Protein backbone atom coordinates (compact mmCIF):
# COMPACT_ATOMS: atom_id res chain seq x y z
CA UNK A 1 0.00 0.00 0.00
CA UNK A 2 1.37 3.42 -0.95
CA UNK A 3 2.28 5.79 1.91
CA UNK A 4 -0.05 8.78 2.17
CA UNK A 5 1.40 12.19 2.97
CA UNK A 6 -0.54 13.90 5.76
CA UNK A 7 -0.83 17.66 5.78
CA UNK A 8 -0.41 19.76 8.93
CA UNK A 9 -4.16 20.33 9.00
CA UNK A 10 -4.97 16.62 8.74
CA UNK A 11 -2.64 15.90 11.68
CA UNK A 12 -4.48 18.55 13.71
CA UNK A 13 -7.75 16.95 12.61
CA UNK A 14 -6.50 13.55 13.79
CA UNK A 15 -5.42 14.93 17.19
CA UNK A 16 -8.73 16.70 17.75
CA UNK A 17 -10.69 13.63 16.65
CA UNK A 18 -8.69 11.45 19.06
CA UNK A 19 -9.25 13.85 21.98
CA UNK A 20 -12.95 13.90 21.17
CA UNK A 21 -13.72 10.26 20.41
CA UNK A 22 -10.99 8.11 21.87
CA UNK A 23 -9.86 9.52 25.22
CA UNK A 24 -8.94 6.67 27.57
CA UNK A 25 -10.30 8.36 30.73
CA UNK A 26 -12.21 11.44 31.92
CA UNK A 27 -9.04 13.45 32.52
CA UNK A 28 -8.17 13.29 28.83
CA UNK A 29 -5.45 11.80 26.65
CA UNK A 30 -1.76 11.81 27.56
CA UNK A 31 0.95 12.94 25.13
CA UNK A 32 2.15 9.34 24.76
CA UNK A 33 -1.36 8.20 23.88
CA UNK A 34 -1.74 11.01 21.31
CA UNK A 35 1.68 10.26 19.79
CA UNK A 36 0.62 6.66 19.26
CA UNK A 37 -2.79 7.57 17.85
CA UNK A 38 -1.64 10.48 15.67
CA UNK A 39 1.57 8.69 14.67
CA UNK A 40 3.95 11.66 14.91
CA UNK A 41 7.11 12.50 16.82
CA UNK A 42 7.20 14.00 20.33
CA UNK A 43 8.89 17.18 19.10
CA UNK A 44 6.23 17.83 16.50
CA UNK A 45 3.22 16.97 18.64
CA UNK A 46 4.48 19.19 21.50
CA UNK A 47 4.43 22.28 19.26
CA UNK A 48 1.01 21.40 17.84
CA UNK A 49 -0.48 20.76 21.30
CA UNK A 50 0.91 24.07 22.57
CA UNK A 51 -0.73 25.90 19.63
CA UNK A 52 -4.03 24.09 20.06
CA UNK A 53 -4.14 24.93 23.78
CA UNK A 54 -3.26 28.58 23.06
CA UNK A 55 -6.06 28.73 20.46
CA UNK A 56 -8.51 27.27 22.96
CA UNK A 57 -9.20 24.15 20.91
CA UNK A 58 -7.79 21.81 23.55
CA UNK A 59 -7.99 21.96 27.34
CA UNK A 60 -4.91 20.98 29.28
CA UNK A 61 -5.65 19.11 32.47
CA UNK A 62 -3.09 18.25 35.11
CA UNK A 63 -3.01 14.65 36.11
CA UNK A 64 -1.13 12.63 38.74
CA UNK A 65 1.97 12.23 36.60
CA UNK A 66 1.63 14.22 33.37
CA UNK A 67 -0.45 16.72 31.44
CA UNK A 68 -3.51 15.40 29.70
CA UNK A 69 -5.54 16.92 26.89
CA UNK A 70 -9.28 17.13 26.26
CA UNK A 71 -11.13 18.76 23.40
CA UNK A 72 -12.89 22.03 24.29
CA UNK A 73 -16.29 23.13 22.99
CA UNK A 74 -14.43 25.52 20.66
CA UNK A 75 -12.38 22.55 19.48
CA UNK A 76 -15.56 20.61 18.72
CA UNK A 77 -16.87 23.51 16.64
CA UNK A 78 -13.55 23.74 14.84
CA UNK A 79 -13.53 20.01 14.12
CA UNK A 80 -17.00 20.26 12.61
CA UNK A 81 -15.94 23.21 10.44
CA UNK A 82 -12.70 21.44 9.48
CA UNK A 83 -14.67 18.44 8.23
CA UNK A 84 -16.81 20.74 6.07
CA UNK A 85 -13.73 22.37 4.54
CA UNK A 86 -12.03 18.99 4.08
CA UNK A 87 -15.13 17.73 2.26
CA UNK A 88 -15.04 20.88 0.10
CA UNK A 89 -11.38 20.37 -0.85
CA UNK A 90 -11.89 16.64 -1.48
CA UNK A 91 -14.66 17.53 -3.91
CA UNK A 92 -11.90 19.08 -6.05
CA UNK A 93 -9.69 16.05 -5.48
CA UNK A 94 -7.50 18.08 -3.09
CA UNK A 95 -6.48 17.85 0.56
CA UNK A 96 -6.36 20.74 3.03
Amino acid at each position, binding site marked *: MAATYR*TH*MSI*IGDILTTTRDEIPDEAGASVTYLIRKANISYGRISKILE*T*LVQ*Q*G*LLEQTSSYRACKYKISSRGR*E*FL*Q*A*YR*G*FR*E*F*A*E*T*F*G*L*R*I
Partner: protein
Amino acid sequence: MEFVLEIILNLVGFGVGLLIGIFAHIGFKNTGSPTLFRLTVAFLSISIGFGVVGLGYMGDSFFIHSGKIESGIQTLGIGIQTVGYFFIAFSHGIKSFFPKSRYLKSIVVPLFIIPGNSIEHIIRSISFILLVYGTIETIMSYMENRKTSTIFVASGLGLLALGEFLGWYSIVFPKSVLYVISISTKIVGLGALFVPISKVPLRGMKFGGNI
Protein backbone atom coordinates in the same frame (compact mmCIF):
# COMPACT_ATOMS: atom_id res chain seq x y z
CA MET B 1 -29.36 34.69 -29.21
CA GLU B 2 -25.58 34.50 -28.73
CA PHE B 3 -25.63 37.80 -26.88
CA VAL B 4 -28.31 36.63 -24.41
CA LEU B 5 -26.47 33.33 -23.89
CA GLU B 6 -23.21 35.17 -23.30
CA ILE B 7 -24.84 37.39 -20.65
CA ILE B 8 -26.40 34.31 -18.95
CA LEU B 9 -23.07 32.42 -19.06
CA ASN B 10 -21.16 35.30 -17.57
CA LEU B 11 -23.71 35.94 -14.83
CA VAL B 12 -23.76 32.23 -13.92
CA GLY B 13 -19.96 32.13 -14.00
CA PHE B 14 -19.68 35.24 -11.87
CA GLY B 15 -22.16 33.90 -9.29
CA VAL B 16 -20.79 30.35 -9.08
CA GLY B 17 -17.17 31.55 -8.96
CA LEU B 18 -17.97 34.11 -6.26
CA LEU B 19 -19.84 31.61 -4.04
CA ILE B 20 -17.10 28.97 -4.26
CA GLY B 21 -14.40 31.63 -3.81
CA ILE B 22 -16.05 33.06 -0.69
CA PHE B 23 -16.44 29.58 0.80
CA ALA B 24 -12.79 28.76 0.08
CA HIS B 25 -11.77 32.10 1.63
CA ILE B 26 -13.71 31.36 4.83
CA GLY B 27 -11.93 28.00 4.94
CA PHE B 28 -8.54 29.63 4.39
CA LYS B 29 -9.16 32.23 7.11
CA ASN B 30 -10.07 29.51 9.58
CA THR B 31 -7.45 26.90 8.78
CA GLY B 32 -4.62 28.73 6.99
CA SER B 33 -4.60 25.89 4.45
CA PRO B 34 -2.56 26.76 1.30
CA THR B 35 -4.91 24.57 -0.77
CA LEU B 36 -7.89 26.66 0.26
CA PHE B 37 -5.91 29.84 -0.47
CA ARG B 38 -5.19 28.62 -4.02
CA LEU B 39 -8.87 27.71 -4.48
CA THR B 40 -9.83 31.20 -3.20
CA VAL B 41 -7.55 32.89 -5.75
CA ALA B 42 -8.71 30.49 -8.47
CA PHE B 43 -12.43 30.98 -8.03
CA LEU B 44 -12.30 34.70 -7.30
CA SER B 45 -10.25 35.13 -10.51
CA ILE B 46 -12.75 33.03 -12.45
CA SER B 47 -15.60 35.09 -10.96
CA ILE B 48 -13.91 38.44 -11.76
CA GLY B 49 -13.08 37.20 -15.28
CA PHE B 50 -16.70 36.29 -15.98
CA GLY B 51 -17.78 39.56 -14.35
CA VAL B 52 -15.54 41.64 -16.65
CA VAL B 53 -16.84 39.92 -19.79
CA GLY B 54 -20.43 40.10 -18.50
CA LEU B 55 -20.10 43.83 -17.84
CA GLY B 56 -18.69 44.25 -21.33
CA TYR B 57 -21.71 42.50 -22.86
CA MET B 58 -24.20 44.33 -20.68
CA GLY B 59 -22.50 47.67 -21.34
CA ASP B 60 -22.84 47.12 -25.07
CA SER B 61 -26.39 45.82 -24.73
CA PHE B 62 -27.61 48.79 -22.67
CA PHE B 63 -25.47 51.72 -23.83
CA ILE B 64 -23.39 51.20 -26.98
CA HIS B 65 -25.68 48.90 -29.04
CA SER B 66 -22.90 47.87 -31.43
CA GLY B 67 -23.93 44.20 -31.30
CA LYS B 68 -20.47 42.97 -30.29
CA ILE B 69 -18.26 43.18 -27.23
CA GLU B 70 -15.06 45.22 -27.24
CA SER B 71 -12.32 42.65 -28.00
CA GLY B 72 -9.98 44.15 -25.37
CA ILE B 73 -12.57 43.63 -22.62
CA GLN B 74 -13.25 40.06 -23.81
CA THR B 75 -9.51 39.28 -23.82
CA LEU B 76 -9.01 40.84 -20.38
CA GLY B 77 -11.90 38.80 -18.90
CA ILE B 78 -10.75 35.54 -20.46
CA GLY B 79 -7.19 36.27 -19.30
CA ILE B 80 -8.35 36.73 -15.68
CA GLN B 81 -10.32 33.46 -15.92
CA THR B 82 -7.21 31.70 -17.21
CA VAL B 83 -5.35 32.80 -14.07
CA GLY B 84 -8.10 31.04 -12.10
CA TYR B 85 -7.82 27.87 -14.18
CA PHE B 86 -4.06 27.99 -13.66
CA PHE B 87 -4.50 28.00 -9.88
CA ILE B 88 -6.91 25.03 -10.04
CA ALA B 89 -4.32 23.11 -12.08
CA PHE B 90 -1.52 24.39 -9.80
CA SER B 91 -3.37 23.05 -6.74
CA HIS B 92 -2.99 19.60 -8.25
CA GLY B 93 0.75 20.05 -8.27
CA ILE B 94 2.02 21.45 -11.50
CA LYS B 95 5.76 21.35 -10.83
CA SER B 96 6.67 24.11 -13.20
CA PHE B 97 4.54 26.12 -15.57
CA PHE B 98 7.47 27.06 -17.80
CA PRO B 99 9.94 24.17 -17.56
CA LYS B 100 12.55 25.55 -19.96
CA SER B 101 13.32 28.99 -21.31
CA ARG B 102 12.52 28.03 -24.89
CA TYR B 103 9.01 27.07 -23.81
CA LEU B 104 8.73 30.40 -22.04
CA LYS B 105 9.69 32.15 -25.24
CA SER B 106 7.24 30.09 -27.28
CA ILE B 107 4.38 31.06 -24.98
CA VAL B 108 5.17 34.65 -24.00
CA VAL B 109 6.81 36.07 -27.12
CA PRO B 110 3.86 35.46 -29.47
CA LEU B 111 1.67 37.50 -27.13
CA PHE B 112 3.63 40.59 -28.13
CA ILE B 113 3.90 40.04 -31.86
CA ILE B 114 0.46 38.90 -32.94
CA PRO B 115 -2.70 40.96 -33.26
CA GLY B 116 -5.17 41.41 -30.41
CA ASN B 117 -7.74 39.01 -31.79
CA SER B 118 -5.22 36.15 -31.73
CA ILE B 119 -4.26 36.86 -28.11
CA GLU B 120 -7.80 35.86 -27.13
CA HIS B 121 -7.41 32.53 -28.92
CA ILE B 122 -4.02 31.87 -27.35
CA ILE B 123 -5.49 32.54 -23.90
CA ARG B 124 -8.41 30.22 -24.71
CA SER B 125 -6.00 27.45 -25.71
CA ILE B 126 -4.02 27.92 -22.45
CA SER B 127 -7.33 27.74 -20.51
CA PHE B 128 -8.17 24.56 -22.39
CA ILE B 129 -4.85 22.90 -21.47
CA LEU B 130 -5.18 23.91 -17.80
CA LEU B 131 -8.78 22.71 -17.61
CA VAL B 132 -7.91 19.36 -19.20
CA TYR B 133 -5.09 18.98 -16.68
CA GLY B 134 -7.46 19.80 -13.80
CA THR B 135 -10.05 17.37 -15.18
CA ILE B 136 -7.56 14.50 -15.45
CA GLU B 137 -6.23 15.09 -11.93
CA THR B 138 -9.76 15.27 -10.51
CA ILE B 139 -10.67 12.00 -12.27
CA MET B 140 -7.53 10.44 -10.75
CA SER B 141 -8.73 11.62 -7.31
CA TYR B 142 -12.14 10.10 -8.02
CA MET B 143 -10.43 6.77 -8.72
CA GLU B 144 -8.99 6.96 -5.19
CA ASN B 145 -11.87 8.33 -3.13
CA ARG B 146 -14.88 7.24 -5.26
CA LYS B 147 -16.86 10.28 -4.16
CA THR B 148 -19.79 11.18 -6.42
CA SER B 149 -19.19 14.88 -5.74
CA THR B 150 -15.67 14.59 -7.19
CA ILE B 151 -17.00 13.20 -10.47
CA PHE B 152 -19.35 16.22 -10.68
CA VAL B 153 -16.37 18.58 -10.37
CA ALA B 154 -14.41 16.55 -12.95
CA SER B 155 -17.38 16.71 -15.34
CA GLY B 156 -17.73 20.45 -14.71
CA LEU B 157 -14.07 21.13 -15.47
CA GLY B 158 -14.24 18.79 -18.48
CA LEU B 159 -17.28 20.60 -19.89
CA LEU B 160 -15.59 23.97 -19.35
CA ALA B 161 -12.56 22.60 -21.24
CA LEU B 162 -14.79 21.37 -24.07
CA GLY B 163 -16.55 24.76 -24.12
CA GLU B 164 -13.20 26.56 -24.35
CA PHE B 165 -12.09 24.21 -27.12
CA LEU B 166 -15.28 24.75 -29.14
CA GLY B 167 -15.05 28.51 -28.56
CA TRP B 168 -11.48 28.48 -29.76
CA TYR B 169 -12.31 26.17 -32.70
CA SER B 170 -15.16 28.44 -33.80
CA ILE B 171 -12.45 30.70 -35.27
CA VAL B 172 -12.38 28.17 -38.14
CA PHE B 173 -16.15 28.40 -38.63
CA PRO B 174 -17.12 31.92 -37.54
CA LYS B 175 -20.82 32.72 -37.10
CA SER B 176 -21.63 28.99 -36.94
CA VAL B 177 -23.61 27.11 -34.29
CA LEU B 178 -20.30 26.05 -32.69
CA TYR B 179 -20.06 29.20 -30.63
CA VAL B 180 -23.58 28.81 -29.19
CA ILE B 181 -22.80 25.16 -28.35
CA SER B 182 -19.57 26.34 -26.71
CA ILE B 183 -21.37 28.81 -24.43
CA SER B 184 -24.13 26.30 -23.57
CA THR B 185 -21.51 23.67 -22.70
CA LYS B 186 -19.74 26.10 -20.39
CA ILE B 187 -23.02 26.99 -18.62
CA VAL B 188 -23.71 23.27 -18.02
CA GLY B 189 -20.10 22.87 -16.82
CA LEU B 190 -20.47 25.67 -14.29
CA GLY B 191 -23.74 24.12 -13.11
CA ALA B 192 -21.97 20.78 -12.61
CA LEU B 193 -19.27 22.54 -10.55
CA PHE B 194 -21.88 24.11 -8.33
CA VAL B 195 -23.89 20.91 -7.62
CA PRO B 196 -21.43 19.30 -5.13
CA ILE B 197 -20.51 22.66 -3.57
CA SER B 198 -24.19 23.34 -2.84
CA LYS B 199 -24.28 20.13 -0.75
CA VAL B 200 -21.44 21.20 1.54
CA PRO B 201 -22.96 22.75 4.69
CA LEU B 202 -22.26 26.46 4.43
CA ARG B 203 -23.77 27.38 7.77
CA GLY B 204 -21.87 27.32 11.02
CA MET B 205 -18.54 27.73 9.25
CA LYS B 206 -17.53 30.99 10.92
CA PHE B 207 -14.57 30.44 13.13
CA GLY B 208 -11.90 32.78 14.40
CA GLY B 209 -8.17 32.23 14.72
CA ASN B 210 -5.73 30.77 12.24
CA ILE B 211 -3.96 27.65 13.40
